[in-house]
């Protein structure tokens, strides 16, 4: 029997939401790690029962939790994230040099083939890897030590490495995105990195087409076509057809192209979802209407999806890691809000219903397709 497991990270704990393939009746488990910030929970594609969670608190720091039974029980793993060598400095908000300081893990990305290999994107921006199921973490320092590192500057949410995209065909290739430095790509498993931001234009930085300095919010890829990437930037929805070598804007007829989340339909590589947010100073939906926008043309032309979503007095946000899709025959789409709702669509976005309405602010949503 097929089913789905939705992994939700919130400001005050993690929740696991499960349903069968119809996705009508849901069981809610949680809060796990109640009272702690859970930036991300993610499952191993190679072993769906293997989950990793990033648990943190301003008081007690960073922990990594691992489950080997689909989220029923958890075990704390290694939590030492030490930058390699002398960390040096990056730019602070005021442009002065600031020491690289570990704050938290934003994103965990398990390997598609090995449950014990998992990548962690952290603040201050760096990439770590564990090859022993989360016990030990080593920095892939070629990224942070890229020549541009000292010029990186934090976005409003901190200088975080928030997106890790692994190429399903070329195991040595991966993409990361950093706020506010941009996108970087490695083709050798993480030793050497280079920025891939050509075509991005950001009016908020002195040189709007600079090689680095762009506030990229999120990347998405369809596994059947890994050379095509979609991006929600601070402003602008972008597309690359050459693995990030160049980018073109595909905001098209969106009512606003500011936003955080972006994802791709599980079976239609040109069907893309975004949640437009009013502006960088007003982080809520335009006109108080929560609308997902879907493009079936790989960007450019967008349609509003509103059925089942609040169309008045709605002032929540949808954060960058808070949207995901399942891979059932009829693709399911899910997103969580800062108001604590997790919405699900079992028909590729045509209609929506809340799974839960009153969780703490949702930081992340991932979906596992089971069975």
């Amino acid at each position, binding site marked *: 029997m097929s089913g789905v497991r939705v992994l939700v990270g919130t400001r005050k704990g993690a929740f696991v939401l499960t349903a069968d393939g119809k996705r009508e009746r849901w069981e809610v488990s949680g809060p796990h790690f109640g009272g*702690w910030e859970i930036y991300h929970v993610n499952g191993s594609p190679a072993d769906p029962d293997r989950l990793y969670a990033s648990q943190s608190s301003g*008081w007690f720091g960073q922990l990594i939790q691992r489950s080997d039974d689909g989220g029923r029980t958890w075990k704390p793993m290694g939590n030492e994230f030490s930058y390699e060598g002398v960390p040096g400095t990056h730019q602070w908000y005021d442009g002065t040099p600031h020491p690289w300081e570990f704050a938290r893990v934003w994103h965990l990305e398990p390997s598609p083939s090995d449950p014990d290999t998992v990548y962690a994107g952290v603040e201050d921006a760096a990439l770590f890897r564990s090859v022993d199921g989360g016990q030990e973490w080593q920095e892939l320092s070629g990224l942070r030590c890229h020549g541009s590192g000292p010029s990186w500057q934090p976005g409003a949410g901190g200088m975080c490495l928030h997106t890790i995209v692994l190429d399903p065909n070329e195991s040595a290739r991966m993409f990361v995105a950093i706020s506010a430095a941009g996108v970087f790509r490695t083709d050798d498993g993480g030793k050497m990195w280079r920025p891939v931001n050509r075509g991005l234009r950001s009016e908020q930085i002195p040189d709007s087409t600079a090689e680095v300095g762009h506030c990229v919010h999120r990347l998405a890829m369809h596994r059947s076509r890994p050379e095509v990437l979609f991006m929600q930037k601070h402003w602008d929805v972008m597309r690359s057809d050459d693995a990030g070598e160049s980018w073109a804007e595909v905001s098209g007829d969106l009512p606003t192209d500011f936003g955080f989340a972006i994802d791709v339909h599980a079976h239609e590589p040109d069907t893309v979802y975004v949640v437009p947010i009013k502006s960088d100073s007003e982080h809520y939906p335009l006109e108080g209407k929560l609308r997902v926008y879907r493009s079936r043309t790989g960007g450019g032309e967008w349609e509003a999806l509103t059925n089942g979503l609040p169309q008045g007095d709605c002032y929540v946000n949808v954060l960058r890691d808070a949207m995901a899709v399942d891979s059932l025959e009829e693709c399911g789409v899910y997103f969580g809000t800062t108001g604590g709702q997790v919405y699900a669509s079992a028909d590729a976005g045509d209609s929506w219903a809340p799974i839960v309405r009153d969780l703490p602010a949702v930081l992340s949503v991932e979906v596992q397709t089971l069975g």
Partner: protein
Amino acid sequence: MIRIMLPAHLRTLARIDAGEVTLHVEGQATQRLVLDALEARYPMLRGTIRDQVTHQRRAFVRFFACEQDLSFEPPDAALPDAVALGVEPLLVVGAMAGG
């Protein structure tokens, strides 16, 4: 025996059901030796009270005992006799915050 009171989140993390942890420390009891012993028994607490590498106290963690704030005492300073003798507990406290 040294008695230690941990905040609720750390008791949950370490699966400590009792209100207090009791530890034996060789020689003169200091913050460093007590935390070394605590982390040896409960490895999941590493990094939650002090930095794993520098052993610097986390900014929002406080050490209280005998109605004194010991947070800014040197880590190798002797703890009060009442703590060393187990008469009073060493309180590890999350700094108070609203919200």
